[in-house]
């Protein structure tokens, strides 16, 4: 793998995480439990999509084949997507969505913060821009974990259950392979072992305040970063890509 190929892969991983979780959150539009929270999720979704656009645009530049970010979003099939499995998990109930957001946002915050130090100035710039937005996402997620974890008996139980269901997808966030190693060597990428410590700290502190029990690390699902996805991604793409595939010349 050349350095250029590795960088393209790396950018897809970051961009696809944002794109897919952004799309998932967008599915809440018009379905939120109350208006304020409906709006909040859509705001966060918009941030993710905006960030995805920046990362994928850069990926296209690195690739140098004249593709655009829209081509990447709308014209790739599931096995070409590089997002972690966590991001494509279904919305479930409100608590499921929040726990998924919590696991991802706390990771995304540490990752993006570290990325601001990247030797690749384009990536550092996107990270700097995104970090401010992601701080809001992280605070939002942590607040809700505490509110519902330390809420009623029912809300506590639902949050604990959601946490146990989704925990097996948290391991992939920190899994590294040859792409990560090349990027770290170049001073471009983030050492995921390093940010894991900060992530653990935030997660433990928040769960404690939320009176939730951190699940034991058991079997961890993986594959998304390599293009091996759960069945859910296909359904996401079917909806997300329908219009540009059915009407390739459609203009807004």
């Amino acid at each position, binding site marked *: 793998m050349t350095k250029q190929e590795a960088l393209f892969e790396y950018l897809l991983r970051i961009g696809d995480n944002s794109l897919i979780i952004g799309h998932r959150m967008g599915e809440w539009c018009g379905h939120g439990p109350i208006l*304020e929270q409906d709006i909040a999720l859509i*705001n966060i979704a918009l941030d993710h999509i905006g960030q995805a656009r920046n990362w994928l645009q850069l990926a296209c530049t690195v690739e140098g084949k004249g593709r655009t970010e829209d081509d990447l979003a709308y014209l790739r099939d599931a096995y070409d997507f590089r997002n972690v499995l966590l991001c494509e998990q279904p919305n479930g109930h409100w608590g499921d969505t929040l726990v998924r957001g919590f696991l991802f946002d706390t990771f995304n915050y540490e990752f993006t913060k570290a990325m601001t130090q990247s030797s690749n100035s384009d990536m*550092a*710039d996107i990270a700097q*821009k995104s970090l401010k937005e992601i701080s809001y996402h992280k605070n939002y997620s942590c607040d809700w974990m505490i509110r519902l974890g330390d809420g009623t008996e029912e809300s506590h139980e639902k949050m604990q259950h959601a946490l146990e269901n989704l925990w097996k997808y948290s391991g992939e966030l920190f899994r590294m392979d040859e792409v990560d190693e090349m990027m770290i060597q170049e001073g471009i990428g983030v050492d995921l072992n390093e940010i894991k410590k900060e992530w653990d700290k935030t997660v433990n502190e928040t769960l404690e305040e939320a009176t939730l029990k951190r699940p034991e690390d058991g079997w961890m699902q993986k594959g998304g970063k390599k293009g091996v996805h759960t069945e859910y991604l296909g359904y996401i793409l079917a909806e997300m890509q329908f219009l540009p595939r059915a009407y390739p010349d459609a203009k807004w």
Partner: protein
Amino acid sequence: MAVYPATDITEIKKILEHVVDPEIPVLTIADLGILRKVEWEGEQLLVTITPTYSGCPAMKMIEEEIYSKLKQEGYENVVVKSVLSPAWTTDWLSPEGRNKLEEYGIAPPLHASADKKILLGTNKHVRCPRCKSENTEMKSQFGSTACKALYVCRDCKEPFDYFKCL
């Protein structure tokens, strides 16, 4: 050599004062700090802008407005460039912009964005743009657009938008 009505940057900036944020139409792009630079590159006029939020849907429209306003005034050879760095901050809102916001019914951002307290939403001194009371409460960190939070005034009971710090 192309003939322009004026090559003076100050004159051109005056034209761009008519370009406003489509979601907060009292603010010009200069008030918001979105307009970063206007400069000549040979015969080409280069206008540099920066988005408030990564996903701000107004950017495309703002870009088109810049082209169209300049074209109306006879500037044909224009390029609008969007940059991410340095990242936009609410500190770039002009003093006039802040006043206009409050008159429009949106509470302006409080202090320097570096203030962690505000980012965490724990600062309680957002002033109601209607009755000027500081006895206000945050309802949601996310409001009607990406750049706003939702507040309610405990004194006059009116809900209002707060342009949150970034």
